[in-house]
């Protein structure tokens, strides 16, 4: 609770502020959109937070989103695969990617930044190759399949909870259980704080680090699937661009330290929500153009980490 207090207050303040400046903000449609986008980015952010907790980083998320987001419609539309087969293949590829990252980082001892930077280039390049740089989508078909992202659980006539948000809740609960109730979660925090001491305590640190990269890639694949089902259009050169940075930003806002060893699932989800409300706020303020979004997100992120650092220093001094 203590860890997410700051970000929760930020979300509430932003939410109230945006409500006051724009009446359309509270419309059911807009709220649904915010929930959905929070969910989509939140899934990526939960994934990357596992990696960040171990003290690593994954820059390949956006490219995995692209690979899966373009690959599934490509397999289904061009090669006639069933959606189930295409989705299974996509997740298998994501698992392989995670295992590969883990292997290169733990056994070949490469730096996570370098490994996943190469991944960022390779997966996008490969996607542009097999998709021949053509935009992929499901056209007007596969509406049932697309319900996975476009469907919603109707609460009132006008408002329903989008399917991706329900998925986020399920994934969030599993992630929370994994991090807080299992030995693996404890191992992740332990090795994120001090890998050498964790290894000396008999923890198979290599296996745990690899696990975190697999989780990250699999959630990136899930995000990619939902993004393309929702938007129905994936352009290999642009789809998922910078998504890893949104995910990392949400994780950091939510209390993950890039030094490793700390982070909470709820904090990360709230971090993702803050980013979406911010985006919405930018649209509602006239003099802030939407192409200035990065400026605002960057400033908010900077303020958040500076504030966090100052609070920590004060706490240390009191102790």
């Amino acid at each position, binding site marked *: 609770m203590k860890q997410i207090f700051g970000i929760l207050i930020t979300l509430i303040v932003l939410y109230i502020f945006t409500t006051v400046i724009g009446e359309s903000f509270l419309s059911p449609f807009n709220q649904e959109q915010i929930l959905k986008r929070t969910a989509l980015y939140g899934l990526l952010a939960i994934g990357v937070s596992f990696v960040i907790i171990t003290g690593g980083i994954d820059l390949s998320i956006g490219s995995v989103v692209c690979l899966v987001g373009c690959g599934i419609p490509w397999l289904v539309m061009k090669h006639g695969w069933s959606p189930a087969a295409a989705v299974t293949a996509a997740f298998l590829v994501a698992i392989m990617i995670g295992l590969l990252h883990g292997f290169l980082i733990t056994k070949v001892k490469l730096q996570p930044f370098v490994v996943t930077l190469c991944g960022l280039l390779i997966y996008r390049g490969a996607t542009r190759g097999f998709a021949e740089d053509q935009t992929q989508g499901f056209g007007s078909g596969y509406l049932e399949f697309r319900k996975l992202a476009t469907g919603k659980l109707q609460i009132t006539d006008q408002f329903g909870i989008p399917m991706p948000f329900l998925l986020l809740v399920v994934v969030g609960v599993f992630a929370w259980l994994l991090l807080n*109730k*299992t*030995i*693996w979660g*404890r*191992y992740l*925090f*332990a090795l994120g*704080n*001090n890998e*050498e*001491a*964790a*290894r*000396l*305590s*008999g*923890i*198979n640190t290599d296996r745990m680090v690899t696990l975190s990269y697999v989780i990250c890639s699999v959630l990136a694949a899930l995000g990619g699937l939902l993004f393309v089902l929702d938007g129905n259009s994936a352009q290999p050169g642009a789809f998922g661009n910078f998504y890893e940075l949104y995910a990392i930003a949400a994780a950091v806002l939510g209390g993950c330290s890039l030094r490793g*060893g*700390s982070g909470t699932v709820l904090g990360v989800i709230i971090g993702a929500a803050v980013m979406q409300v911010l985006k919405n706020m930018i649209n509602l303020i006239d003099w802030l153009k939407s192409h200035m979004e990065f400026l605002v997100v960057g400033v908010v992120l900077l303020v958040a980490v500076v504030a966090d650092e100052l609070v920590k220093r004060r706490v*240390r001094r009191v*102790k």
Partner: protein
Amino acid sequence: MLSARGVTKRFPGVVALKGVDLKVARGEVVSLIGENGAGKSTLMKILAGVQKPDEGEITMDGRRLDVSSVAAAQAEGVSLIHQELNLAENLSVAANLFLGREPNRFGFMDQKTIRLEARKYLTKVGLEIDPETPLSQLSLGKQQLVEIAKALSTRAKVIIMDEPTSSLSHGEVETLFEVVRDLKEQGVSVIYVSHRLAEVMTVSDRVVVFRDGEKVGELGVGEATHEAMVRLMVGRDVSQLYQRTEHELGEPALSVKGLRTEANPDHEINLQVRAGEVVGIAGLVGAGRSEMLEAIFGMTPPLAGKVQGVLPKSPREAMSLGLAFVPEDRKKKGLILDLTVEENTSLASLKMDARGPFLNREKEKRLCREMTKALAIKTPGPWQKARFLSGGNQQKIVLAKWLALSPTVLLLDEPTRGVDIGSKEEIYQLMEKFASEGMAVLFVSSELDEIMGMADRVLVMREGRLTGELGRSDFSEEAIMNLATQS
């Protein structure tokens, strides 16, 4: 000449120095001694400008000294020679001497002056070598002398030496002492910090003893006997500190055969420790003692050799053989500082106690409660982060973590380093208790008192190999140091 008055330094949770006074006359050699954490190194660092005091003042000939930084202290004539030398190995001796203050002309190095000056200062410390020799070609003892020459070249009036002999051979120690005597005659004062009491007796004019951040006594040349120094350092007779009981030794519980480590691939190590036996490993810093323990525990897997019949490839494997290891650097290797006392205590046994993949919180809590009580760990609660505990209590958590696995062999690397005297006594009592319960204990220590006080048998290492073995009746500082330094 140099005088410190009422120096106080607080660190989070501890007062490292409580209003300490120290006076050093011109050409005097003053030794500072005390247990780890007694405050001697803090005082030394304050005098050399490495740390700032919270209170107190430092004067030289009645004039207040500016020791706000290392450079300022050096300009005032106070130089510190660190235990781990601060030299650039790849540069020449001359380049090291004038690093950062090279004589120059319009930014170009004045090589001629550098060489002449270098030779002058090297002669002062009795080094007849070419200033252009790369430093890495010199032995550690000679590098030490280069450090002293460097201090002299800054016109140091006071040179502080921190454990200068910890990695020197016998002959090199003699040379160092001659240089110290020369310095005295040149009117340079020396503050000498060491654990080696025999050396302290030889070299100093006066011995100042610290305990728990306070100056507890001063001894002149005649008074500084071994017993007198130890009594002041420890605050009681040593015989009370090391309490061993006689008990039957069992079968060999640890057997190491043909062990070759990465650090010393050319020497095979063979040793055995019997159940209930406490074996100490002595040797100089760099003799390969830690490397040996780390290899036995699979932390740095050995190149070859068998521990309990197998080659340990990871700590996990060593643990399954009944081994436990308390490393030298508990903050980097022993503990996870930002996890709680409870989480640290249960870390090694977590898997054993888990229900499937799920944590067993009740068992975890019970384990922490039991261990906190059994080892008398002082913590405000199980939720406290290990970071905020004192050195002694941190060390006990590392022990608790292993005890939860009921190991048959306990390896300890410098078990009492940086631990206050009270905790030290408790750790010795625990070692004795574990042995009497049938555990085999193998420990590395650089403190000869500790080795001789606790061990049933001492193995001495030098340059990566075991050079000797002494039974309790043959223990003496001389015998151990001979085995550790003979060549």
